[in-house]
């Protein structure tokens, strides 16, 4: 039984990583709206976001010395071109992952996974791009759990498509298929903070989201009817709320709440979270939450708790040292809990290229017994054009 406890965790590694980096608060970007069309992060980058990626995030070490920041930024557009019109933006993405599981054991296994090969298209209109139409389509392998929640096992599909309208700079309405507004949208889909409240790589939903940004506050209210690509009885209908408050210009603290249900299960999740900036690319992200799962028609109720602490240090431009520390207790009545510790390195050698190496150590705590730690190595390549 002990060894099977790891299977769900292993399966979750067969997933794509999102393209959201809430740690960039440490570069002076507390809000996602500057760099992403989706105000909650993730998805295609704005022109400004592409420039930031080129000049502020990636290393300048490999560019010719004669290039200034303006020259570098001028290459940040689609296929290294400067946009010549205002209404259409495109982006191509590829993510590949070398996963070495059961590291250091006789069952060690190495697998290459093409996590994502997709195209994103943005149409934008009106003054200050107040009206946007955003879509993503391409190769996105479904998780091994997809069938169990009524998803069709399609490899070529969309993970988001929506229409957004900013009524004013402070408030916008977004309708379509997108990620739920909840918690910190960290790039690791395997994070307990994304897996337990079901806001991970295949949990997008159809719905309407209202996003607000006002006087140091930012938040979103999201009403959803579930993914229409799922069979009707599996669709999680409900709503969520995510609010953050800016403190001392540099930091954000906030909370999230989400409630949803389908024919089989009711799910309530709530969390406190914060993003602290220590300047120069160094940041601390923190989330502590609980999920209450109520299985309708039987006594399978449970309350689980999760914690996330991510540290980002930037010794030199383009290079980030990551500490990914997670806690999970799937059932508060159980005596077991898991702590997963993942030191990693994220490197942006040039614009549009991210290389990442993460080592994960998982340890089960039980006052009555001990098991051997599990180790996993993930090597990721991410390209966007």
């Amino acid at each position: 039984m002990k060894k099977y406890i790891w299977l769900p965790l292993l399966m979750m590694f067969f997933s794509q990583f999102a393209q959201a980096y809430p740690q960039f608060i440490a570069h002076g970007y507390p809000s996602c709206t500057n760099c992403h069309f989706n105000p909650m992060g993730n998805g295609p980058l704005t022109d400004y976001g592409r420039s930031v990626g080129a000049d502020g995030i990636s290393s300048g070490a490999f560019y010719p010395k004669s290039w200034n920041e303006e020259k570098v930024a001028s290459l940040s557009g689609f296929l290294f071109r400067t946009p010549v019109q205002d209404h259409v933006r495109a982006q191509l993405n590829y993510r590949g992952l070398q996963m070495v599981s059961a590291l250091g054991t006789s069952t060690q296994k190495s697998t290459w996974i093409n996590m994502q090969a997709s195209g994103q298209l943005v149409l934008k209109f009106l003054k200050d791009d107040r009206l946007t139409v955003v879509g993503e389509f391409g190769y996105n392998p479904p998780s091994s759990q997809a069938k169990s929640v009524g998803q069709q096992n399609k490899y070529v599909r969309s993970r988001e498509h929506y229409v957004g309208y900013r009524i004013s700079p402070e408030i916008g309405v977004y309708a379509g298929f997108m990620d739920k507004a909840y918690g910190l949208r960290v790039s690791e889909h395997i994070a307990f903070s994304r897996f337990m409240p079901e806001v991970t790589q295949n949990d997008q939903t159809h719905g309407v989201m209202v996003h607000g940004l006002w006087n140091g506050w930012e938040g979103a209210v999201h009403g959803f009817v579930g993914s229409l690509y799922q069979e009707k009885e599996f669709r999680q209908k409900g709503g969520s709320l995510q609010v953050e408050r800016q403190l001392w210009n540099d930091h954000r603290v906030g909370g999230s709440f989400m409630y949803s249900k389908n024919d089989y299960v009711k799910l309530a999740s709530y969390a406190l979270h914060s993003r602290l900036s220590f300047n120069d690319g160094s940041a601390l992200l923190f989330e502590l939450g609980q999920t209450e799962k109520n299985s309708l028609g039987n006594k399978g109720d449970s309350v689980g708790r999760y914690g996330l602490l991510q540290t980002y240090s930037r010794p030199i431009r383009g290079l980030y040292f990551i500490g990914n520390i997670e806690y999970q207790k799937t059932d508060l009545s159980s005596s077991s809990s898991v702590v997963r510790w993942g030191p990693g390195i994220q490197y942006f050698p040039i614009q549009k290229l991210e290389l990442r190496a993460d080592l994960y150590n998982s340890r089960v705590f039980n006052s009555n017994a001990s098991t051997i730690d599990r180790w996993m190595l993930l090597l990721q390549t991410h390209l966007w054009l």
Partner: protein
Amino acid sequence: MKKRFHYSLLILCSFAWCSASAQPKAQNLNQLVIQFNQSYPKELKKIKAAIREGKVLKAEEFGEDYKKLIFDIYIGYNAKIAKTESTEQVTKKDRDDVFFLKSALEKLEYRESEVDRASEELNAHYVYLETKKYGFKKRAFLDFVSWQTEATLSGPSSSTALLANNMGYQLGLGLTYENSFWSFGAELAGLYGYGGVSNISGSSTYQQSSVPAYGGRLSVSGARVVSSTGSLLGIKVAGLFLQQTLTTPSVAGYSINQDRPLSFTATLFTQWRFQNYYFETEFGRYIAKPSTLWALGLGMLI
């Protein structure tokens, strides 16, 4: 004309000596230049009074050669100070003279943008010298720690590996020697915790709940300061003395062989500072043992 030539020659010599790192000579020379400057007593008196009383000077009443002379001496001083490598090398007189020369040039409204730029560079150098200064800091900390203990259960026919995943706390004191770029430190801490013990191999079954463990830890560290708020990224090497006594089974023929209580660890650590308080993470391995140790802690400067 003769006098002006004399000044120019001296200033050129001063620059040359500055460039050659002949600072004492350059300093003497600059003093000499200022003394020569006192051969303009009337002008100097007017400038000093204007600075002291906050009055506006009529810049056009001062000759171009005189203004240029002050500007050159100011730039010469800046060049000299820019070559210093510690705050001790910049004397109070240097600082006072430079401040006076800058104030004089402001009153004379002479080459203002160049004076501002030179002043900014000088201030940046002062800041740099300050940040390079090493100092000692004492601190106290409390960490939540997890570590592993291994043992072997020897039976009549075979051996079984035992493992305890412990969690507990370490309370300690530390001393760091640091500047704005690097931090070196030493820590001493006491540990207390507990863990469940199980067999992880072999045919024998062994289980013991919440076995207490205690000990001490002495570590040395070196870290790079990676942000302007003083965040650290570094390495820690520690000697760990831990005692955790496992109960020997009452069945005849069985005994428990525990590892030596002294072991060594190498860990990566990050530290995040909030003024006099800090948060720290630490993750690493035992040296020459396949076990892992990690810690999360809070500390304060004392």
